């Protein structure tokens, strides 16, 4: 009875002592009772099995829940990662687009330069100096060649498509070209088909690029669509394309005017040739060969009238 009372009074101390003794016994005897080569003692194996059976469902549940939380957090973090990646890709795309645009521009420039080279080879009588157009202001082009490169005033600037204009001012490194848009520009021309001669004046108009073909007679054979080329009398090498007749000349007066659409748009030109020299071109309306001169009848047509309009009409 007394013992029971003492046990009850000191229960917690007894429990403490019992648990400490059990723990110490397990710690001390474990190396001795564990079978050789085995990781655990038989008692520990039993405890492991029991503990696993009890805790396993909870561990699986918590693992699954933490997986869900990780997945949800992953969506948020991966969204910000994806946002950063998208931004990087957009920047790369913009850079690539710039490179592609540059590549395409280079290809176009290559094509233009090849065409210019081919034009140069096709016209061996012309000494051509290639020049890049730096800017265009109201029909006046600025090119990157000047007196140091051999450019002089009154030289003409052309492209493979036709006449651009003439040099009006020169500095050591640049020059200015008056184009067919400039009011001051004039050039002696002829209609390729009918050999009618005239003068083309620059349009001088920002809104209309049509030039005037002046000093043609009412009866002269000029039709819409006729090709206008430089004449032998002009300061330009002959035979270069100026443009096409867009409006046939009117009637009702002695001298009439036709309108010519220039072959070259000066606002779209990027490279030009400056004609620094030219050998004489064979006149395509030259006199017939020697057989004609000997008086033999060759059946050739009569000599064309080479006089200018003013000469024709002069008293």
């Amino acid at each position, binding site marked *: 009875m007394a013992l029971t009372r003492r046990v009850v009074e000191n229960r917690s101390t007894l429990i403490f002592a019992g*648990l*400490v003794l059990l723990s110490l016994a*397990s710690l001390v005897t474990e190396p001795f009772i564990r079978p050789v080569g085995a990781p655990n003692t038989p008692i520990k194996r039993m405890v492991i099995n029991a503990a696993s059976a009890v805790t396993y469902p909870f561990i699986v549940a*918590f693992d699954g829940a933490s997986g869900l939380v990780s997945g949800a957090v992953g969506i948020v973090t991966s969204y910000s990662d994806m946002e950063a990646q998208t931004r990087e890709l957009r920047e790369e795309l913009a850079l690539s687009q710039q490179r592609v645009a540059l590549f395409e521009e280079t290809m176009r420039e290559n094509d233009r330069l090849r065409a210019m080279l081919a034009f140069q080879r096709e016209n061996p009588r012309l000494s051509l100096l290639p020049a890049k157009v730096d800017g265009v202001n109201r029909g006046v082009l600025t090119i990157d060649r000047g007196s140091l490169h051999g450019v002089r005033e009154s030289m003409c600037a052309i492209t493979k498509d036709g006449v651009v204009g003439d040099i009006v001012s020169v500095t050591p490194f640049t020059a200015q070209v008056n184009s067919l848009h400039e009011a001051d520009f004039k050039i002696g021309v002829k209609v390729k088909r009918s050999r009618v001669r005239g003068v083309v004046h620059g349009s001088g108009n920002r809104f209309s690029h049509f030039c005037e073909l002046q000093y043609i007679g009412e009866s002269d054979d000029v039709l819409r669509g006729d090709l206008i080329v430089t004449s032998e009398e002009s300061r330009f090498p002959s035979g270069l394309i100026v443009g096409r007749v867009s409006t046939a000349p009117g009637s009702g007066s002695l001298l009439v005017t036709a309108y010519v659409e220039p072959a070259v748009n000066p606002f779209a030109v990027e490279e030009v040739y400056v004609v620094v020299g030219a050998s004489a071109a064979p006149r395509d309306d030259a006199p017939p060969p020697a057989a004609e001169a000997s008086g033999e009848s060759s059946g050739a047509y009569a000599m064309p009238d080479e006089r200018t309009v003013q000469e024709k009409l002069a008293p």
Partner: protein
Amino acid sequence: MRKNVLWLLLIVVAVALQATWVEAIGVRGVMPDLMLLLVVYFAVNDGDERAMLTGALGGVFQDVVTDKVLGHHVLCYVVVAFVVGRVGERLITDHPAVKVGLVFLSGIVMGLLFVAIGYVQDPGSSALYVILANVVPSAFYTAVLTPAVFLVLDRSRRRHAAMQGVVLHD
């Protein structure tokens, strides 16, 4: 009976949490000890007997999960439970700071005992480094969680008591 089942469930949940989620909130390998929190809680609220049984059971689970020799965690938790239970009878433990302090000191004592047992088993281990790098930071981390964990446990007890129709005296 029901109270004991809930107590067992609480121990198992604490072990499962310690084995899974607590690792995620660890800082440079330093993790809080949920079982220690449970032991100190029961020591303060229910006395040393309940705390020692909690420590014994929780210690067995911890030894299994961490693959230590059976009795390693058990001895440490039981000693801490007994000491805190006896000290708790003489302390006014209502103030949160007292509870935090008790948990911190328990963590230190528990850690020292743990390292000492480990040193006896393997004298080559660097005990001082483990104490400074792990025991002290872990005790601090566990003490930081004390107010939150104790609040949750208190509310659970009150709800359970309310469901039972029992009035709890704080």
